[in-house]
C-alpha cells in the first residue's frame, strides 16, 4: 500500500497550502499528524489542503483535520479541503462534518472560500 505523505506546497499572505496523499488510516494518520499540525496551526493562517491523492480516510484522519480546523476557527481562520476522490468524499459526508471541514472540488473553489 502507498505511503502516507504530507507536503508543504506553499505559503502566501494569509494562506498556507499543503498536500496530503496516501491512506489516512490509523497508521497513516499517525505518520503525518504531527507534521500536519505543525505546518498549519502555529502559522495562524487559512489553510488549503489538497486531498486529490488521498486514497482512504478513516475517523483518525478526520479527527486530525477537525483538530486543526478547531485551532484555526479560534483564530477566525478556515481549513478548506479540496479535490478528494469520490469515495473519500463519501467518508467525509458520512462523518457529518462537511460544513466544519469546508470540502470543495477544486483549488479554485477552495481559494474562493477564504
Amino acid at each position, binding site marked *: 500500500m502507498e505511503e502516507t505523505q504530507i507536503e508543504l506546497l506553499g505559503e502566501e499572505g494569509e494562506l498556507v497550502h499543503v498536500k496530503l496523499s496516501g491512506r489516512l488510516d*490509523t497508521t497513516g494518520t499517525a505518520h503525518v499528524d504531527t507534521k500536519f499540525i505543525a505546518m498549519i496551526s502555529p502559522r495562524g493562517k487559512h489553510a488549503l489542503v489538497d486531498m486529490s491523492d488521498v486514497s482512504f480516510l478513516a475517523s483518525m484522519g478526520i479527527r486530525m483535520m477537525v483538530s486543526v480546523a*478547531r485551532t484555526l476557527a479560534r483564530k477566525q481562520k478556515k481549513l478548506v479541503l479540496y479535490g478528494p476522490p469520490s469515495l473519500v468524499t463519501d467518508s467525509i459526508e*458520512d*462523518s457529518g462534518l462537511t460544513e466544519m471541514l469546508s470540502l470543495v472540488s477544486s483549488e479554485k473553489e477552495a481559494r474562493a472560500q477564504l
Partner: protein
Amino acid sequence: MSQPTSLRLEVNVDEKDLRLLSSRLWEFLNRYTLPLKAIYNAELVLEEMVCNVLRYGRAERIVFTVTVDSGALWITITDNGVPFDPTAAPPAEIPDSAATASIGGLGIHMVKKAVDKMVYHRIGKENRLEIWIDTKAPSV
C-alpha cells in the same frame, strides 16, 4: 478449482498490523467483480471496528472474516474482550462548529452510515458483530 469465497484474518493486538490486514483484505476482494465502494467500506469496517476493539475491548483474540456472497459482503468480527454492542452505541456527537468541536464515537458512526446491516450478539464470553455490505450497487 473454485476460488475461496471467505477470508479469515486473525488480528494481533497491535494497531500497526491493521495496514497489513487491510492490504490482504483489499487483495482478496479485488479478485471478484465488486463495486469499489463496497471494497472501500469493507476496509473501513476493518479499520474502525477492529481498532475500537484493540483500543477499548481488552481482547486477547480478534478474528475478522469476510465472505463474498451473492449480492453482498458478509463480515463477522469476533473478539473475547469486554462486552460491547456497537449497534447500541449513542450517536456520534457531531459539533456545530469547529471552534467547539469534540467528537465521540465517530468511527462507529461512519461505519453505520457505510454498511447496510449490522447485528450484534454476545455469545458466552465473545462479542460477535455481523455486517452486510450490499454489492449490487453499480461500480464507482
